[in-house]
C-alpha cells in the first residue's frame, strides 16, 4: 500500500547542541554532517515512512534550543502528535533540563495524548555522564518511549522514529485530523497497553 494516509506532525526539542538536527538529518538523509550549522529558530524536514504497510508522511519540526529562541517554539507544539525529547548522554545538564521541556509541552500541546519519546544521543562518545538506567527511569516516570542513539553511528535512530510513529498510529484519536479540517482517514489501529515500553 503506497498511498499516503496522513501527515503526522512531530517535534524535536531539547537543549542546543544535543544533536537534534543531526538526528533528524540521519533519519531523513541517512547522513551525518559535522558541518551542520546551529539551527536558528525552527527548521523542518519531511519524510514518508511505511509502517505495517501504512505509509505516513512525517513533517518534523526541528528547534534551536537556545533560551532566546524558546519563545518561538510553543506555536509548534500545537497539533503535534509526537514529540522527541533529546538529551546528550555526555552532558548531564541537558538531561536535568528535560523537566523544563516537559512542562512546556504539557502547557502548549493541544493533543491530550501526545506521544512522547526520550532519546539519549551521542552514545558513541566516551565520556558518558548519564547512564542508560537514569534515562529509562525518567522515561518511565513520565510515560515516554525511550531509546539511546547516536546520530553519528546511526545506532537507534531509525528505530526511534519508527517506534514513535507506530505509537502515534496506535493511539486512538491522536492522528485523526483536528476539527475535521483534513478528511478523516482510517488506519486500522491495534490496541496495546500503556506507553511505557521501557
Amino acid at each position: 500500500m503506497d498511498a499516503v494516509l496522513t501527515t503526522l506532525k512531530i517535534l524535536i526539542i531539547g537543549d542546543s547542541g544535543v544533536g537534534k538536527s543531526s538526528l533528524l538529518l540521519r533519519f531523513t538523509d541517512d547522513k551525518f554532517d559535522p558541518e551542520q550549522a546551529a539551527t536558528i529558530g525552527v527548521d523542518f524536514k519531511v519524510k514518508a515512512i511505511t509502517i505495517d504497510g501504512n505509509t505516513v508522511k512525517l513533517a518534523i519540526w526541528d528547534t534551536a534550543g537556545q533560551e532566546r529562541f524558546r519563545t518561538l517554539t510553543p506555536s509548534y507544539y500545537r497539533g503535534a502528535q509526537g514529540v522527541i525529547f533529546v538529551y546528550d548522554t555526555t552532558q548531564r545538564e541537558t538531561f536535568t533540563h528535560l523537566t523544563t521541556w516537559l512542562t512546556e509541552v504539557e502547557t502548549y500541546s493541544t493533543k491530550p495524548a501526545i506521544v512522547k519519546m526520550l532519546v539519549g544521543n551521542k552514545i558513541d562518545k566516551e565520556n558518558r555522564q548519564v547512564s542508560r538506567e537514569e534515562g529509562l527511569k525518567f522515561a518511565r516516570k513520565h510515560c515516554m518511549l525511550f531509546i539511546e542513539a547516536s546520530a553519528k553511528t546511526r545506532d537507534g535512530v531509525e528505530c526511534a522514529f519508527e517506534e514513535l510513529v507506530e505509537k502515534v498510529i496506535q493511539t486512538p484519536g491522536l492522528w485523526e485530523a483536528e476539527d475535521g479540517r483534513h478528511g478523516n482517514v482510517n488506519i486500522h489501529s491495534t490496541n496495546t497497553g500503556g506507553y511505557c515500553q521501557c
Partner: protein
Amino acid sequence: MSESEDENAVVQEDEVFEITDFTNASDWESFITQIEEIITNWNLTSYVKLQPLQNNEITNGDWEAVTAHLKFTNVPFTMTLHRLKFKPDTEQFVEELNEEDDDKIPHPQYVEDMMCIDNDFPARAHCIARWYGLRCFLILSISSSNGITNQSKCNLLTSSVSIALSNMSCDVPFFVQIQENWRRMYEGKAVSTGMSTQFEMVHLKKCPQQYAYLSGLLHLFKNKIGLTSLLSGETRVSARFTYVLHDWGIDGKWPAKPPDPEAVASHFGTLLYGCLEDPVTELQLAAVWPSMTGDLVIDNDIHSDFKPLSAPRWVVRLCYADDLTCLLSSYLYEFIKATNRTESMSDLLNVLEDHTTDKHLGQALEKITDPSAGGMLPGVKLASGLTKVVTDSQTLFRKSAYTLGRIAAVRGRIPREVLNNIKSYMFFQESTNSRQSSSQQQQASTYTFYHKLKAAPIDSLTHHLAMCAIVVNLCHGGLSALAQVWHVFVSELRTMLDKGECLPGIDSSKPDLNTCLLHQKLQMLNCCIQRKVLREQRSPRSSSEVDFKVNPSFVDISEDLTESNNHNNHMATDESKNETTPLKEVDKYDGNLETSENAAASSNHSERLSSNDSRGKFSVQSDDEDEFFECESDIDLGDTEQKHITSGDQHQEISEQQSLDQVSFTVNSNKTEDGAIISRDDVEHSTNENKDSMVDIDVSYPAEGRLKPCDDLNLLRCNSSLFIPHTQDHAPVTEDQLEEQAEVFSKLGDTKEGSKVRAKMQSASLRSDMEAFKSANPGCVLEDFVRWYSPRDFENGELSQRMKIPQNLWVTTWKSAKPVPAHRQKRIFDDTKEAEKVLHFLTNLKPAEAAQMLIPVCTHEALLVLRLASDAMKESLPSLPLICNQIEARAAQIFKQWHMYGSVANQFQPWTKDIQSKVEDLFRQITFAETMIERARSLQHKFRNLGDTAQVNAFVRQLLEHPEVPLDEAAVGPVGCIIKYYFQNQQNIVVEAESPLSSEQSEDVRLPKEIPPLPKPAGREFIIRASNSYPSPFSRKLPHRMYAVLMQNEFRLASAVSHDSTFF
C-alpha cells in the same frame, strides 16, 4: 449472547433445513424448529430451580434482554428473553427438579416467583414482571406491522411455541404480544411437569361497574379458578393505592421566588443559574397493604377497609419536568443561536446603502442607541423581525427561548443608560468577584482552569465582554443587542488606543497562547498601546520630530544627560524627575511587563531579576569599566555617537558618558527589565553603511545598553567583564500569526535552500541581540557572544565545530552586526501596524462571529458557576462533581482543538459543523447537570422541615437515586407528616375551587363538611393469589394469581391460572 449470533443461528438452521430431506415439512414445523434452536442456544433446555427471590430483587437486580429473529412463512418475528441476571453466589444453588411422588412435585420456578410476596408492585420492572412477578420470561412479537390482531393467528403461534418449549423441557413462561403495541397485551403459557399455566389479559378503557372494588374482583377470580367453597383464608390480597400531589402550594413550590427579569437583565458579574419553573412536577404517594387474607377485607361501593392513612407502608415516587427551562442553560442556548446567524453588522441594522464604511455603521448605531431619536427608527422594525426569528426557530432550544421571552422583553435597541452601564462594567468596573480576588495571584502565571479551557481570566476585559454579550443576547433583544455591545466595545478600544490608555483587565504580558484568540488579540492590542505610550512619553521632550531626525544622537545624549543630572541630585530629584522626565513611568511599565511574564519565560525572568541583588557589586565593576574606557577612548571613533562626542570637548563628554552608564544602570536595575526597548525607531542604524564594522575587534566605542555581567566571565580579547545586554523583546504574537508563520516556513519546503531562507527569516532577533551585545561589550568577539548565547558551542576554549563553519549564518550575521544598543535599534515589532491589524480584525467580525469567539469564555464562566453549585449540592448529589469533571474535561478537549483562524493571520474562520455540534452537546451536558441541581434544590426546599441539613440531604439523595422510596412509619413518620401537609393544602385549594359560591347562607352548611386529607386515588392495584385444584376438584392443588389495575382511563386484569395436566 449477542443478537447477531442468534441471527446466524437462525440462518444456519434454515440452511440445514433446506439441505436435508425435510422438504415436505410445513411452515409450522419449520417455525417450531427455529424456536427449539433458539431455546437450545439460550440454554433453557432443562428445568432449573433458583434461590427464592430476595426482597425487591425484581427492582434492584440486573436484568438482561437477549433477542433472536425468526420467521413464520415469510413473516419476521423476534423472540426476546428477559431475565434477571444470576447473582454469582446464587448460581450454585441450582438444583435439578426431580420427579418423586405425585403429591410432592415441587412447583416450577415461575410458579414460585408468581407466588412470592416480597416483590409485589416493583418500582421498576418490565410490565410482565410487574404483572406476574416473573424473573424470567420469553416474549414473541411480530417485527413489523401493527401487531397480531387475529385471534386464530395468535392461537397458532401460542401452540407452536408451547409445543417447542415442551419438546425442549423448557418451563420458562412465554408471551405472545397481541393487539397494538401501545396496549401492551400479551397472551402466554408455561408448561412444566404435570402442569401448565395460562396467562390471560383483559384491557379496557373503563372499569366495568361490577369490578370496581376488590369484592367484585375476588368474585371474578374465584369463579375463574373454580373456588366455590366458602372457607376463608384461601385467597391472599396485596393492594396498592396511588395518590397524586401536583400542587405543592406556596410552601413547597420551587423556585420559591422566580428570578426578577430586570435583575437578570442587569446582572453582568456572573451568570445566574436556576430553573424558572418547578422541576418536580408531581409526587405520587402509594399506600401499600402487603398480603392480607382476602375474605376478611371489605372493599365495596359502600365501605372500604383500605384507609390510606393507616396503610402499613407508604412509598413515594416523583415525576420531573421533561424539558426544564433553567437560566444558565438559557444563556448558553440563546448564545449558540446567535452564533449561527449570518447577518453582518449592517445587515442587522438594515439601514445602510453603503455597507463598506464603519463610519456609517457607527452613525447608524448611534442613532439606534440614542433615546432622543424618534420612534420610527429601524430598531423597532428590527425588534419585531427578531422576535419572529427567535420564535420561529426550529432549533432544539425553542422552549427556552419562549419562556425567556417573558424575562427578556425583546427590544430593538438597548436604552442608553443600560448601554452606559454595560460600557462602564466592561471598561471601568473593579472586580466585584470574590472568586477572583482570592485566586488572582496564582492566576498570573500558573496554568489554571481558564488555560485548560483556552478561555480568558475571570474579570479580564475579555471576560467582562463575554458576560455582557451573553446577558444582552438573552435579555436585551438577541443579536441586535449583541451588535450594539460589540460596536461600543470596538469603538472604545479605538479610543483607548488613540488616547494611549492601557486596556483595563488585560495584563501587560504578551499574548498567552493558552487563552482564546480574542483574549490574545486584546493582549496584543494592549502591548501595542503600552509601546505607543512608551514612545510618546519619550519623544515630546525632543522638541519636534524634525529635530529628532536631523540629529538623533544629539537628542539622545542630551536626554540622557538630563537623566544623569537628576541622578546626581538624587535627594531632590524624585519628584522633579517625575515632572521633567517620564522615564520613571516608563520603567514602571516594564516592571509590569516583567512580573507578568508567563511561566515559560520564568527561568529567564528570575535570572534577570537577580540583577537586583548584584547591583552593589556591579557599581564597583562599572567603575573599573570607566577606567578602561578612558584608556581606549583615543582610538578612531567611527560611530555616529562618537562623532558627536569628538565635536565637543572629548574629555568632558566621556565622563558624562560614564555617569550616563551608571544612571541607566541604576534606573534599570531598579525596575529590572530594559527600559528602552523600542524607542527612537527613527534611528535606523542597521541601514547605515557598515564598512567599519568589519574591523576585527572594535573597542572604539563606549559601552551602552548593559543589563548585567554574565557570571564571572571576562571578554576573551580584552580585560573586561562580559555583559549581558539589554535586548529587544521578542515581538508579541498571537496564535494565528504563529500559524501563518509556520505555514510560510513549511511552504519553503525541506530543501537546503528552504532551510537557509527560514534561518535567514528568523535571524532578525539574532542580529538584534548581536548588535546589543556588541554595544554592551566593546572589544568582544563572536566567541564571547556564543559563551553567553549558546554556551555549549564554546568548548575547550574555542568555538564548536559547527560555529566555525565558514559563512554560516552566525558568523556572517556577527560580521555585519554593528554595535547598537537595543533602545536605538530599529524596532522589530511595529506596534502601530499591529494595533491596526487587531482593530481591523475586530471591526470586521460579524456579531455571530464575535459570539463564537466568546463561547469558550462564556463556557468557562458557566462551568465555574456549575462547579460552585454542584459543590454546594454534593450531599444530595454525590455523583455531580464527577459529572462536572467529565464536562470540564470535554470542554477542554473541544476548545483546545478549535482553531478560530485559517492559514492567514487575522482572518476569522467560522466554526465547523463538527465543533458546533460538539459545543451543543457540551451545553446539553451542562443543562443536564443544572437540571439535576435544580431537582435537588427543589426537593431540599420541599422537605426542608424534615430535620437538620444532613437529614434533609440524605432523604433528597434517596429520592433522586431511587425510583421509589419507602417512608419510615408510613403516614405518621416525619416524611409522611410533611406529605400529608402538602396533600391537605392541595385538598383545601381543590375544595375551595369546587365550591366557589361560599355565600353567607351556605357557610353553615360548609363548615361541618370535612375535607378528606387525601384525594381520590389515581390508581388502585391488587394482586390476588389462591391455591385450588383446577380444572377439576380432583386435580392437584395448584397456585393461581391475578393482577388488577383500576385507573381513571384504564382497566387491566392479568391472570395466571394453572392446570393440572395429569389428573383432570
